């Protein structure tokens, strides 16, 4: 089990000692403190929740094929969409990139042996698992029907479902992401290898730094909000119940204080993945590195000041609404900066048409639509009409699925050889990226039209005239599902049968490509010394 110094020295002759084959027993996985193994544990567990959330999504789309509620009762439907939201947001989207790819790469990219607190890292996975078990109990024990937003007083007083269990699960999942964020912040501050200055860090690390700040500053507020909700439901404390003097709108303020920044927890890491992949696909330094780096931080900061844009019609004060609206418009600017810089990176690049390139292009297209449609919703005059309609549903799916999930899938393909040491068939990667892109657009573009026509979200039955677009959306969803199942199949296949991956299959820059595939337990044979900028494919020309 334990490797000795002789083993490490011997590995130069036989480079087969890596983090994967360093111990095979269950115990060597469940008690590991290796960030890479914990990342793999996370990949397995969030995949399970992604599948579960996807299953609920398919049920929703099946039901909405017809205007009547013929597949399930309204109660069941409400539980299905609520559990889709809760599972996808708290158990998939928030941890998706940071806890998996981020966990694997942040220490390697900064040139460290591990995260600063390996045991805390393992603890965070266990907390996540316990949260997942609680969530599963809530689902199996009858479900929860409040929507992922848990709005009071419905959730605190009127709902007859497992609100406390679900809230507890979300609370604990949040705790796990606090621990991850804490580990990243400390690691990026103190564990950088010699020569790895802040402005030599890969942009992936910058985006994870920004994400971690949000995790540290935002998550405790959702935690306290859920505590108040549980106290109200469990003990009849009247924090949000108007009959007891409470204010239901206060819950929305507290909830969105976290949950809006949480959107940036979901999108920033995927922007980091994008920066890495754009550079590798074009074999070129990311254009305007500093601007892309600081735009992440700007998004993290501004993201905390826009929560009220979820409440333009909720009876919050008009002037508060104006402030939230204008800051929301401003938060669009750093996202635009990123898109322009990625585009400029491709200019005069050396672009290869591989799986990563398909994901990069798919991401750009979907994130553009998602980001731009945010302009409609931050306009107070338009949001009155669009709030709580399918327009909102389409918008945030373009951001979260078109953005984050595309980033996650793309990143998994990009670093798969590093993580597993195996290559997957590139043609299948391109096919599945294409399917995801087409299926996604067919699923969610019609929902913009539905939303502008006025179809409210969370509707089990709906007027007949909305059916055609809903059927289109459901058809798209089946293509989208295929686009997710196929990678599941060939990636799994590649673990067993795939050809062995070279250390740097894409000819990319970055410390992770300088170590072996898969990396040794402590990431590098010896602590790397960094002497160049990130993405230095050749001599850099200043303007």
């Amino acid at each position, binding site marked *: 089990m334990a490797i000795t110094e002789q083993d490490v020295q011997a590995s130069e002759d036989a480079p087969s000692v890596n983090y994967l084959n360093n111990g095979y027993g269950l115990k060597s996985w469940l008690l590991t403190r290796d960030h890479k193994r914990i990342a793999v544990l996370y990949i397995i567990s969030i995949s399970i929740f992604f599948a579960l959330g996807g299953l609920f999504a398919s049920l929703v789309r099946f039901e909405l094929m017809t205007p009547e509620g013929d597949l399930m009762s309204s109660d069941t439907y409400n539980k299905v969409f609520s559990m889709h939201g809760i599972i996808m947001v708290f158990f998939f989207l928030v941890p998706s990139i940071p806890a998996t790819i981020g966990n694997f790469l942040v220490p390697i990219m900064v040139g460290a042996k591990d995260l600063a607190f390996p045991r805390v890292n393992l603890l965070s996975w266990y907390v996540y698992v316990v949260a997942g078990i609680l969530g599963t109990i809530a689902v199996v024990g009858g479900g929860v029907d409040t929507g992922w937003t848990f709005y009071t007083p419905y959730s605190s007083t009127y709902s007859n479902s497992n609100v406390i269990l679900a809230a507890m699960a979300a609370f604990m999942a949040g705790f796990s992401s606090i621990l991850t964020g804490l580990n990243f912040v400390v690691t990026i501050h103190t564990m950088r290898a010699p020569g790895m200055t802040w402005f030599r860090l890969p942009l992936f690390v910058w985006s994870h730094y920004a994400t971690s700040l949000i995790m540290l500053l935002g998550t405790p507020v959702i935690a306290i909000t859920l505590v108040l909700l549980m106290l109200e439901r469990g003990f009849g404390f009247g924090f949000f119940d108007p009959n007891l003097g409470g204010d239901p709108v206060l819950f929305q303020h507290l909830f969105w204080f976290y949950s809006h920044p949480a959107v940036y927890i979901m999108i920033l890491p995927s922007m980091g993945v994008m920066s890495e992949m754009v550079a590798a696909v074009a074999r070129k330094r990311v254009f305007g590195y500093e601007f892309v780096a600081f735009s992440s931080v700007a998004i993290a900061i501004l993201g905390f000041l826009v929560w009220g844009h979820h409440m333009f019609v909720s009876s919050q004060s008009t002037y508060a609404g104006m402030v939230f609206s204008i800051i929301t418009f401003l938060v669009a600017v750093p996202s635009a900066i990123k898109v322009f810089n990625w585009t400029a990176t491709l200019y*005069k690049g050396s*672009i290869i048409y591989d799986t990563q390139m398909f994901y990069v292009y798919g991401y750009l297209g979907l994130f553009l639509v998602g980001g731009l449609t945010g302009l409609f919703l931050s306009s107070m005059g338009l949001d009155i009409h669009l709030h709580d309609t399918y327009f909102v549903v389409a918008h945030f799916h373009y951001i979260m699925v078109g953005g984050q999930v595309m980033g996650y899938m793309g990143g998994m393909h990009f670093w798969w050889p590093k993580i597993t040491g195996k290559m997957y068939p590139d043609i299948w990667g391109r096919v599945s990226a294409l399917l995801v892109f087409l299926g996604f657009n067919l699923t969610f573009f019609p929902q913009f039209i539905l939303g502008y026509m006025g179809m409210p979200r969370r509707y089990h039955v709906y007027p007949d005239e909305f059916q055609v677009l809903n059927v289109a959306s459901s058809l798209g969803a089946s293509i989208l599902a295929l686009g997710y199942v196929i990678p599941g199949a060939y990636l799994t296949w590649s673990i067993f049968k795939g050809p062995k991956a070279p250390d740097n299959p894409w000819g990319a820059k970055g410390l992770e490509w300088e170590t072996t595939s898969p990396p040794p337990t402590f990431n590098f044979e010896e602590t790397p010394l960094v002497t160049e900028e990130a993405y230095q494919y050749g001599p850099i020309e200043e*303007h």
Partner: protein
Amino acid sequence: MQTDFPLFPDQASSFAFQVDALYFGILALCVFFALLVVILVVIFAIKYQRKSDDEVPRQIAGHLGLEIFWTAIPAVLALGVFVWATVLYFHLITPPPNAMEMYVVGKQWMWKLQHPEGKKEINELHVPLGESVRLTMTSEDVLHSFYIPAFRVKKDVVPGRYTNLWFKATQVGSYHLFCAEFCGTEHSRMIGTVHVLEPQDYEAWLTGGTANEPMEVAGERLFEQYACHTCHKMDGTGRGPSLSGLFGKTVALEGGGTALVDEAYIRESILNPSAKVMAGYKPIMPTFKGQISEEGIIQLIAYIKSLKAPELTSME
């Protein structure tokens, strides 16, 4: 009016056109930027396809001028849209002073609506063409949201407080009324229809059917039933303030401060009387919490609103 496969909602209120104009304005902006980026990246992909495995392109660090350019342009455009949208918003939330009053109470899972003339409706609302209508809304239980897509209006209906919404219908017809805020099991069936009638048809509808008690009359009955009139005497000699002509005024409060007598203030004074006591009076009024329904409170408010000038109503 609705085809089988519409792609755009009816424009049936005075500001539907303005909202749609903003929508298409932003849409044009979005299409421009989306096409710009998409066309560029596609051209780049074709033009700069990797020729050989060891090809290394020129490394361009960045360009400050470009960065400033594409930071400033989106920022200016975004602020322009902000101004446009916010001006429109103020128009959407500011009813004209002469608007007709109607009242809405949401409960799981129905809309209860009442006209000042007394006509009550459930899940249906009849409004006259070309008249501004202002709704005062509250909820008996959870959050709801009152949404008429064809009018481009929506407002949350919140328990424990009043919210308002106004519109002016400009096209005769029947339109969807939705609950847009998730409110439990039958949320998607908490829907109704808004009927826009020609003014004369509206009059006929209003007076047709069974005779209705106007809301202010119903409110006056409640006013006596709950013995409000024993303290709130119209001539001001009672233990509570006279309510004549009080609505819409700003009054001084016991312990300092002032309050505008509006729907929310009257509601609070009925349910939580000692919260804001008028200067010169003692906090002796008992609460009526749990005794009067939301609809009853609305009727009382309609009655108090009708008490315009002291000399007209001090006949008793």
